[in-house]
């Protein structure tokens, strides 16, 4: 008794191949749609904004006049902001991930914590803004300073960094941990000498991608009350400041048509900022990639 009749298989072959081609086309169109939208967006922003992208644009502060408006305060503010967010979020995030993956016992409570950290990354950023407003701006009286905004942004991206770091740590092969424990290494020695060196590319890649999200976030800054037009550069962590997305948001909502072009130029600067950060992430990943 034969179950596979080769004649009928051959007969149906044409149909199967057609279905295959149809789906290939559908998936290709889906990709094309996303790419095309992105290309149109890029074209619009570049054609609109590139004219304003002069040296003066980087050297001027905000202004009521489109021709005089510059991005200096926002760019410097964003860099300051990153100087707070990067160390705070990476330290807390990687520390939490190490605790959860290496030290915490497998029990219901820890499973609950793990699950909720993943859920936290889905909480809207405006909610984190309210949290920052309550705790950092008011309770700790940090005001709408770089420090308050930096802590708020750190909380916002913390879940993403924790999850990325947990995954990177989990991907370190079990057998090289065993080799380390087998020689009498303590948990900490194993983490420092074996686990982290192998996990660092993944941790940093995830971390930098999370940081670039923080660079582009506007909502928490608005809630905290970060001002838009600032005519000075921040002097210390408690100074007032403004950031790139705030500045762009302000320009984009102004009635004068010229400000739309200024906003486009601001978006170009923001995108370059992100591009540089993502290139660093790719560079780190390629440089430190380990073979197993």
């Amino acid at each position: 008794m034969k179950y596979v009749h080769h004649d009928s298989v051959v007969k149906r072959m044409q149909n199967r191949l057609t279905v295959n081609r149809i789906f290939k086309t559908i998936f290709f169109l889906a990709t094309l749609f996303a790419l095309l939208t992105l290309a149109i967006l890029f074209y619009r922003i570049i054609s609109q904004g590139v004219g304003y992208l002069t040296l003066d644009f980087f050297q001027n502060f905000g202004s009521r006049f489109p021709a005089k408006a510059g991005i200096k305060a926002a760019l410097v503010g964003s860099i300051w902001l990153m100087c707070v967010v990067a160390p705070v979020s990476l330290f807390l995030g990687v520390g939490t991930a190490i605790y959860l993956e290496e030290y915490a016992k497998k029990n219901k409570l820890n499973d609950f914590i793990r699950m909720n950290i993943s859920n936290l990354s889905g909480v809207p950023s405006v909610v984190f803004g309210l949290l920052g407003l309550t705790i950092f701006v008011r309770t700790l009286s940090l005001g709408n300073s770089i420090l308050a905004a930096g802590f708020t942004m750190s909380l916002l991206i913390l879940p993403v960094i924790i999850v990325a770091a947990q995954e990177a740590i989990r991907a370190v092969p079990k057998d090289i941990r065993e080799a380390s424990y087998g020689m009498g290494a303590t948990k900490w020695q194993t983490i420092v000498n074996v686990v982290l060196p192998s996990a660092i590319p993944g941790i940093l890649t995830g971390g930098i991608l999370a940081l670039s999200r923080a660079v582009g976030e506007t909502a928490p800054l608005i809630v905290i009350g970060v001002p838009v037009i600032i005519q000075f550069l921040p002097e210390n962590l408690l100074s007032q400041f403004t950031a790139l997305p705030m500045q762009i948001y302000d320009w984009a909502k102004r009635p004068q048509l010229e400000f739309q072009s200024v906003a486009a130029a601001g978006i170009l600067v923001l995108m370059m900022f992100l591009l540089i950060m993502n290139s660093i992430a790719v560079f780190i990943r390629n440089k430190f990639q380990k073979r197993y």
Partner: protein
Amino acid sequence: MEQILEKESKIILPTKDIVYDTQQLNLWYGNHHALKNIDLPIRENEVTAIIGPSGCGKSTYIKTLNRMVELVPTVKTTGKILYRERNIFDADYGVEELRTKVGMVFQKPNPFPKSIYDNIAYGPRIHGIKNKKILDEIVEKSLRGAAIWDEVKDRLTTNAYSLSGGQQQRICIARCLAIEPDVILMDEPTSALDPISTLKVEELIQQLKEDYSIIIVTHNMQQAARISDKTAFFLNGEVVEYDDTDIIFSTPSDNRTEDYISGRFG
């Protein structure tokens, strides 16, 4: 101690000290009773082979000897394992201290993704040796001890992953020697290797037993017969028979042992 020796009356009275004395060891993974009432005295400067079919508890047993088994969170044990007359389950006996004296070689070669030198120097470094000269000496001595010095002496700075599987396993043995252990535990050290590499590792084990006590788990009965002095046959978490290797492989006293070594099951 004497009681144990009486119980294992078939063993010729020791001229060598007992290094590991397992007494009434029971081990559970959750509800699964993996080791049942194990009594096993292991002598120094001998190769003790542990054989048995898959799932008989031989790997679990050897991992209990340096408490690596506790990396599985649901493990429970009762009974005693005396290492040099001290119970390794004692609350004041740190696993780190135990594992400094008891090295382990694993089934799959598991060098660190570091240079050959850093692999060997790992153990001494974590135990606090920083002096470069001393480290150099330890690295050379360990690599010579593992019979791989001549093959790698010109490329100590290359990544250990660039070596072949057999070389990697000997690097792992050298890494284990670098902490100057008293006992070396080997969990199927040749099961991932080709026949020639296997032969090299077996020859190495013969040399190492001059200075170390070796306990080796193996799936390969011919290997146990070739290299070991004593053999323990495990079945379903129990020690069925433990005796001189010659006796186990020629005139075993238990039918199950005979069935296993003659290839009727397993």
